């Protein structure tokens, strides 16, 4: 009797873990199958070239989603992503215009993103301000700064090696940016699961009070999370600039919503404490594939927007269902 009891509970836990990790993946497979079965899309959709395209289209959202995943797991939110991407892309373009060495440009740009995150994080942790409001303010500030630096125009610069990041070489190779993204995902997935810092981020999101009382330096870590996310947004900004070959202060408006959607589709909970880096990568892929597939189907853009909206709501519904399974 007791034996069978522990067995069912154990298999139940296994099932939950299985579902939590593979749920988003199943969604991704489903999306691919859906477009593969359609006669209109199949000839273009299921091609090597197209997947190369999907991967490079995923890069910008995917990189930002690493930072966003940590923020959301810790129970926070960042609405300034799009503006920070625009700001950093303009900063990088301007520096290139001045003729700075590309490595210096990369470093200064990434630091810029980190500083924006540091401001967000400090206000949120040390002054106990609401992350929604702080980053909403930063959304305006960073966008304004980008326009100010760029003098309200696009910033053009002479051809730079940085552009290689998003250049698509001939043949099967996707751009270098895709590999960088993949590498960062692997590194930060390990950090989130197998380091003390990673565990503390989950702990803070699950119960900040308890983490504080257990000696976790909650304020430092939270500030660090927003700063780290800022670094990722800057890398996204660099990719954005490399893709357009110019700095555009009006680019990436509303990008934060795509990034948050990717993280949520990837299984994270806005209440904090739940989510995974690998899930977010799949979330970002699902978003990019949906966009790409809809274009192949020849659906109008408004229809694409509706579909992506439906998928987000669906993801949250599944999450709710999963929580009910967990709690009963």
């Amino acid at each position, binding site marked *: 009797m007791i034996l*069978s*009891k*522990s067995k*069912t*509970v*154990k298999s*139940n*836990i296994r099932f939950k*873990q299985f579902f939590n990790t593979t749920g988003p993946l199943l969604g991704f497979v489903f999306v691919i199958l859906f477009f593969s079965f359609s006669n209109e899309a199949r000839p273009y959709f299921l091609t090597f070239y197209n997947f190369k395209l999907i991967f490079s289209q995923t890069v910008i959202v995917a990189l930002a989603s690493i930072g966003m995943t940590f923020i959301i797991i810790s129970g926070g939110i960042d609405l300034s992503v799009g503006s920070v991407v625009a700001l950093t892309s303009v900063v990088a373009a301007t520096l290139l215009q001045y003729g700075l060495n590309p490595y210096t440009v990369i470093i200064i740009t990434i630091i810029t993103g980190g500083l924006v995150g540091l401001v967000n994080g400090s206000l949120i942790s040390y002054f106990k301000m609401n992350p929604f409001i702080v980053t909403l303010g930063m959304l305006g500030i960073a966008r304004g700064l980008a326009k100010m630096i760029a003098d309200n125009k696009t910033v053009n610069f002479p051809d730079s090696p940085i552009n290689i990041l998003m250049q698509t070489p001939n043949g099967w190779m996707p751009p270098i940016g895709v590999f960088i993204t993949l590498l960062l995902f692997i590194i930060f997935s*390990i950090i989130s699961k*197998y*380091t*003390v810092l990673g*565990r*503390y981020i*989950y*702990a803070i999101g*699950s*119960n900040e*009070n*308890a*983490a*504080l*009382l*257990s*000696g*976790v*330096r909650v304020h430092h870590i939270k500030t660090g999370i927003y700063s780290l996310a800022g670094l990722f947004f800057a890398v996204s900004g660099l990719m954005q600039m490399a893709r357009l070959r110019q700095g555009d202060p009006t680019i990436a408006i509303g990008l934060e919503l795509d990034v948050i959607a990717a993280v949520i589709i990837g299984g994270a909970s806005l209440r904090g*404490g*739940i989510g995974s880096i690998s899930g977010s990568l799949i979330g970002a892929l699902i978003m990019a594939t949906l966009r790409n597939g809809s274009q192949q189907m020849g659906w109008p853009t408004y229809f694409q927007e509706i579909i992506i909206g439906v998928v987000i709501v669906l993801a949250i519904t599944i999450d709710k269902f999963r929580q009910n399974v*967990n*709690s*009963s």
Partner: protein
Amino acid sequence: MHPIFQLRGINKSFSKIKVINNINIDFFSGEIHAIIGENGAGKSTLCKIITGMYRANGGEMKLGGKFYSCSHPKDAINSGIFMIYQEPNLAPDLNVYENIMLGYEKKGFGFIDSHQSKETSIRILDQLGFTDIDIYRTVKNMSISEQKIVEIAHALVLEPKIIILDEPTSALSKVEIDKLFSMLLKLKEKGIAILFITHFLEEVETIADRYSILKDGKLVESQLIEKFDADKIINKMSGRTIRFRIKKGKKKFSNEVLRFEGVNGAGIIQNVSFTLRKGEVFGIAGLIGAGKSEILNICFGLTEYNKGSISFKGQKISNLNPSKMIKIGMGYLPENRTRDGLMLDLNVTDNILIGNYNNVVNKLIITKRAEANHINEIINYLNVKVNSIEQQVCELSGGNQQKIILARLMNFDLDIFLLDEPTRGVDVKTRKIIYEYIKNLSDKGKSIIIASAYIPELLTICDTISVLFNGKMLETLPVNKWNEEKILSHSMGLLN
């Protein structure tokens, strides 16, 4: 006399595990019916079936002779069954009368008739004997016992036939319990049937007319209170006798580890001085609101103090904060484990290791095997019942959750343990394990401060007890100089 409410052959299973097994109980109007049993005995599940949170798998319920079924908590309330949960379930930002009338507001022209709301609230509070409660006070600023009163008043608006109270006394001090009991007697006079869930057998003897014992989902017995025999009951609940007698050798304390000198702060603490020595178990007694938790909060750096000094092993320390205090060897068990203690979404392992992963980290990376070995060792020591060390702590019972926090403290290298109500809401068996845990710590030369509203507990486990009254420490004496009455009279400020 016909029973107002009957349970006949109630069964409930969760994924093939029987948690309620063929239960028959009769409840009568105007009686207080205590339901006792350890954590996990099925008390809460049974109440959730009665109030419609769960559906029974079999059996029937009769309310006033008619078949009763409910599929939603609202149905239960409409049929006259109201449950009051262990944790306050009020709208914290609304005031007393708004909370009492919440959901039952009288409306005129679409607007709430606040005049009538106030009148009804005052009338109900009068009936309960609480004329001194200010109906304009915001609920979040009230003590837990006052919030309980508001909840009971809220329940009375619809004139229920049955009120279920889930461990109503677990956060209350002696005086407040007496107040609650006098209120229950008034409800009884009104002919309401009261289901009273508790861990405390002395409360059953004091207040109940009838009692039912549950064990492993089965009814052991349901009897009139005249048949009550506390010693045998413990046997029936747990299947073995538990004596709360902790053997203590005569201890001599010399090395001082912590000293408070004239500390003021937290808005209530005034001029508190005491010394904690190596191996000493130091109890802080007092009513709720006397400042017990506040002393621990100051000590752990959660609240600032503005006067006096605190020294640790002879050295004055300042700018206290939790991470600093843990580093120098002080740990804290919060009073409210779900709010301040546990990360409910996370698993057993992370809940224990938080704050110190040093034992399982190799070159910055956490190794699963080291984790499993380390955690299994700790949970075996504390006898924590888990299905897997990956199990989420929200699935554990209250007693096991409390053990998880004790396990976390064990995982640090601590010299001083601050325990705020360490046995709140845990069953008899866990209580004993916690007492043994404290004794073992003290034998190993660790020092412990316990804040507790439960006087017998302090008398059982402490070496020294100090009584707080309105933020002042009245007297600090070795445990053999105290008895229950003396602590109680000090707590109420009646010095003799």
